[in-house]
């Protein structure tokens, strides 16, 4: 199964949180810093914070740790970036991602499929005559595993939100 191999060989993914001023061009400037060093952004989530003047960005990317450290320093330097840091220790944060997966679900496979869905604690959010849409949340690894598992049934479409994280307890994100 190709995707299993992919997961196994997947390079270490870094998770970076940024608190940025909610101003035009911030995303452009941040992505330029990544692209200049040849860093590929895997996922990127931008959302408003409680205080409307700021946005939260969560970026996942892979590459040399020393280069990433430099990238974070350079991102922190941007005038509109209030704070940027990498979450190195996954025990200090909770992380979640959500995926919508549309799979083939012919009648004869349906029961089996529903068992898989249950196993992954995911839910069916759209039920069609020949296909269904699954919503799954969890760690990136869990989602990867489910996607791998569903390959056998035939995935029609896949949409993932990208990872969001939050510091546990008194830890700020």
């Amino acid at each position, binding site marked *: 199964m190709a995707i299993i191999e992919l997961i196994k060989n997947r390079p270490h993914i870094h998770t970076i949180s940024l608190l*940025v*001023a909610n101003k*035009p*061009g911030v995303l*452009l*400037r941040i992505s*330029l810093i990544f692209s*200049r060093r040849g860093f590929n952004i895997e996922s990127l989530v931008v959302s408003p914070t409680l205080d409307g*003047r*700021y946005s939260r960005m969560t970026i996942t990317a892979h590459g040399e740790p020393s280069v990433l*450290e*430099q990238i974070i*320093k*350079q991102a*922190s*330097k*941007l*005038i*509109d*970036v*209030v704070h940027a840091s990498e979450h190195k220790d996954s025990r200090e944060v909770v992380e979640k991602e959500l995926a919508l997966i549309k799979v083939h679900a012919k009648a004869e496979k349906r029961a089996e499929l529903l068992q898989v869905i249950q196993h992954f604690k995911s839910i069916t959010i759209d039920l069609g005559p020949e296909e269904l849409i699954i919503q799954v949340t969890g760690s990136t690894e869990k989602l990867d595993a489910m996607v791998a598992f569903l390959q056998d049934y035939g995935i029609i479409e896949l949409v993932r939100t990208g990872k969001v994280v939050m510091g546990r307890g008194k830890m700020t994100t």
Partner: protein
Amino acid sequence: MTKKATTGAEALIKCLENKDVKFIFGYPGGAAIPIFDALFDSTIDLVLVRHEQGATHIADGYARATNKPGVVLVTSGPGATNTITGIITAQMDSIPLVVLCGQTITSALGKDAFQEADVFGITAPLVKHSYLVKDPNDIPRIVEEAFHIAQTGRPGPVIIDLPKDITSADCTASLKNITMDLPGYTIPEKAPKKDIQKLAELLKASKKPLILAGHGILISGASKEMKTLAEKLGAPVTNTLLGKGAFPENHALALGMLGMHGTAYANKAVSNCDLIFSIGCRWDDRITPAKIERFCPNAKKLHIDIDIAEIGKVLQPDAYAIGDAKAILTELIKMVEPLPTEPWLKELDAYKKKYPLGYKIHGGLKAQHVIDELYNLTKGDAIVTTDVGQHQMWAAQFFKTHAPDTWISSGGAGTMGFGFPAAIGAQMGCPDQTVIAIVGDGGFQMTAFELSTAAIRKLPLKIVVIDNKFLGMVRQWQELFYDQRLSGVDLEGNPDFVKLGEAYGIKGFRIKRPADVRRILEKALAYNDGPCIIHAEVVKEDNVFPMIPAGGSSDDMIIEAPKYKMEKPKGST
């Protein structure tokens, strides 16, 4: 009578006046007309250049000579894109510029409107910060922020893109007591005491220290502290190309410039020191090898920089302090004691005697001779600007810089065409000083059109054109590394630069023979009725030495022309 409403453009100009802006270097066009209109009534002196690139380099030279931000004003589209080279030149060397660009009206943005260019997008990777103004009432705040950002911390260029409808609309915002909104901008000022103590501790253990004085010292205004520290420690000082003037190069402890074309003794000091202490220098690849572990492997590395992103970027220091050089040095000076450097200084003196900088006066006119004589005649008391190339390196070697902010050269970007317009800016900022532009025949022709700008204002600057009828620095590389296969470097057909000057009403002098150098330079230096061009027709083929081939370390330095064919540089450009 009701008070006439203030337009965005008028508010802009008022704000610039309040910021004490003396000059705006600019070039008009449709999208910028409202701003030029507002300038009509202003006390600010509008300097009409002949090309927008010229405006940016003039503003840059002004900023480097005065430590005040240079202000540029251009129109949209091609006007704005013509400033790009000047913007990256300023960004690479941390120079404060505020560049105002006219822009098409807001409702036309993104529709390929006449003379529309996405200036915000194009310049994003080249600036410290940028703005696209969407509301005339934001203008006072944005100007306040732009000047603050350009000048503080690690300085750099800031762009303000101003749509024409915004500069034409009413601005009702107050122009006084402006509050900035920069939650993400922090300027490291005070380094933790324990970090400075760590520097002091490592210094204490050193017998062969070497201070590496960078441009950051000049930006910080810390040359006095720099000198006190060196003298108290008894430590020799080398400087980068941009650090010229951070420590007087005629001081007994001075070794001059290090690096690719640095002095042999400075590079020997790099090879043999037991500690190297960079103050406001970013370990650029013209002074460090591609394999960084080859950079003085046995020396402790110390680093002071205001920019945290510079710490560990090129090399991992053994100790560092982040903050303003002046503040850190003031603390550090109190913590250090004289070091036992006698034997080390003797060793270096021996290198100085063994490998002095030199050139042969005979066998044709030498660029080095002209520059050396300029130095002797002015006793180093002049602001020198350079262009980029061999003449730049010879100027760095032979024109010792004695005082801060008197050496102006494009280092990081190495922008040909910089030297002459930069001299215009320096002369406008420092009208009472002798300003000398040392330029190559290639680079001068890139921005020579600013001769009008200099002539109209009768600026008494001296333009020394080192004419070797080659793109000399590239020719040198082709000779040394590419089997003398000269490709695209021949400048035969150059104009007669004296006649070129005449066309602008500019006085000209010509030097052809070594015997004439002193006499003609004396005359030129005494001429102060306006600019003058000194056309020095030097030997065509001459090379800059010492040289560390790109990517190499100080151990790879060659002091004179090699007899063997050299390998092409690896790991660096």
